[in-house]
C-alpha cells in the first residue's frame, strides 16, 4: 500500500517520520521541485556533518590515560587500606569493643603513671634559700650584728682618737668594711633568698669582728 503525503507533511516527516513516510515523501519529491529541493537540503546537512568526524587514532593517547588510571588506582588502594583498618573496629562484637577499650585505657593510664614517676627531677638551685632557712639566717645575722655592734662600741674610743698609726689603719679598714656590709645588706634586701650574698655578708662580719678584736687587743698592750 502506497502512502500519500503532501508538501504540508514535509516538516513533520523531517522531524519524526517513519521509513514509510520518508519513502512516500521521496516519491512525492520526484514530482514536486520544492519538496525535492528541501529533501536535498535536509540530507546535505547530514552529509556535511561528516566533515566534523575524525576518528584518527593517536598512539600515545591510551598509554597516557593508562598511566593516569594506574596512578589513581594506586592512590585509591592506599586510601581503601586505611579505611578498611578504621572500619575494622565497628565490625567487632560489643564485648570485644569493651575489652579493647578497657585495655586501651589501662595502657594509657600505666603509660601516664610511668612517665610521671620516671620524669627527671629538676635540680634545685643550691644558691636559693627556702623561707624557713631564710628566717633562721636573718635572725642569726641580727644577733651576730648586735654582738659585733657591742664590740664596736667598746673599740670606739680608740678608733675615734687613734694613738698609733696602726689604730688609724684599723679605723680606715673598719670604714671600708662598714661600707661593704651596707652594700651587701642592700643587695640581700632585694634578693633575700640568695645564699651567696649571705655568705659574703657573713665573711664581712667576721672580718669586722676580727678587726675589732685586734683593736681591743692593741689597747690592752
Amino acid at each position: 500500500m502506497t502512502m500519500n503525503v503532501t508538501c504540508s507533511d514535509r516538516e513533520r516527516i523531517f522531524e519524526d517520520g517513519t521509513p514509510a513516510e520518508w519513502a512516500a515523501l521521496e516519491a512525492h519529491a520526484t514530482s514536486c521541485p520544492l519538496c525535492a529541493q528541501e529533501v536535498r537540503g535536509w540530507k546535505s546537512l547530514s552529509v556535511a556533518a561528516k566533515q566534523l568526524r575524525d576518528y584518527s587514532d593517536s598512539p600515545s593517547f591510551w598509554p597516557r590515560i593508562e598511566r593516569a588510571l594506574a596512578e589513581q588506582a594506586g592512590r585509591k588502594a592506599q586510601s581503601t587500606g586505611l579505611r578498611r583498618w578504621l572500619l575494622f573496629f565497628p565490625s567487632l562484637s560489643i564485648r570485644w569493643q569493651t575489652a579493647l577499650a578497657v585495655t586501651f585505657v589501662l595502657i594509657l593510664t600505666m603509660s601516664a603513671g610511668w612517665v610521671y614517676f620516671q620524669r627527671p627531677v629538676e635540680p634545685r638551685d643550691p644558691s636559693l634559700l627556702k623561707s624557713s632557712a631564710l628566717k633562721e639566717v636573718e635572725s642569726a645575722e641580727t644577733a651576730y650584728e648586735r654582738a659585733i655592734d657591742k664590740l664596736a662600741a667598746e673599740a670606739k674610743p680608740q678608733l675615734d682618737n687613734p694613738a698609733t698609726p696602726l689604730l688609724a689603719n684599723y679605723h680606715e679598714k673598719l670604714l671600708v668594711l662598714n661600707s661593704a656590709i651596707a652594700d651587701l645588706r642592700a643587695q640581700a634586701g632585694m634578693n633575700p633568698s640568695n645564699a651567696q650574698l649571705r655568705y659574703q655578708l657573713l665573711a664581712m662580719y667576721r672580718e669586722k669582728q676580727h678587726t675589732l678584736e685586734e683593736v681591743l687587743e692593741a689597747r690592752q698592750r
Partner: protein
Amino acid sequence: MGTMGLALPWRARISSVPRERGTRVEPSEHFAGGPNLAAVDAQGEDAALAAACRSGDLRAYERLYALHGARMKNLARNLVGNPVDAEDAVQETFLKVHRSIASFRGQSSFITWTYRILINTCYDARRSRRRKKEVANEDSEESPGLEPRAPGAHPALRMALERALAKLTQHQRDVFLLYEVEGFRHAEIAGMLEMTETASKNTLFQAKKNLRQMLEPPRTSAAGSR
C-alpha cells in the same frame, strides 16, 4: 560532577559503532519488529564491560577505549573546540569513571553513563576556558576549527559548519553533534542529555532548520513559500 551515578529513566543501550547510515539519511530510529540480536549482544557486552571496570581491571578500560576512545575524542573535540582540551577531557572522563564506577547502578547503559560524564566534563572544560579567557582579557573569540582534520575533509565546508554550529543553542549543537556526527540514536542522546526522546528529535529538527538558514543561500520566493 553532579550528574554521575544518577538514575536514568530509560534503558536504551549503545552499540560500540555509530548508527549505521545506509542510502537513507533519515530516519534511522524506526526499526522493523522482531528481536534485535545485535542489541542483545550490545547489552551483554555493556554489562560485562561495566562489571570488569568495577572490578578495577585496567584492561577493561583499555577495551572501553578501543571501542569508544576515538568517538569520545571526536565528540570532545567538537564540544570543546580543540584537540588538546579534548584529550584532557577524555582522560578526565576515564578517571571519573574509574572513581565513580561503584556508584553506577546499571539503570542506564554503562556507555551512556560514560558519555554523559564526557559531555559534562566538556562543559566544565569550556566554562573553565571561558573564565580563563575573561581573566586574560582576550577579546577575540578563539576559532574552534583550525586544527588539522582527516585527509579528504573540506576545510571551507567544515569551518562554515563549525561557525554555524557555534551560533546554535547548546542543546541544539549537542544533539546535532551526537546524532549527525557521532551517529547516536535519539534514545541514547536522550539519556546523555537528560531529555526525552521526543525532545531530542525536536531539538535536532530545530538545529537543522537553523543550520540550513545559516548555511544555504537565500532561496527564491517560490521556494520559500513552504
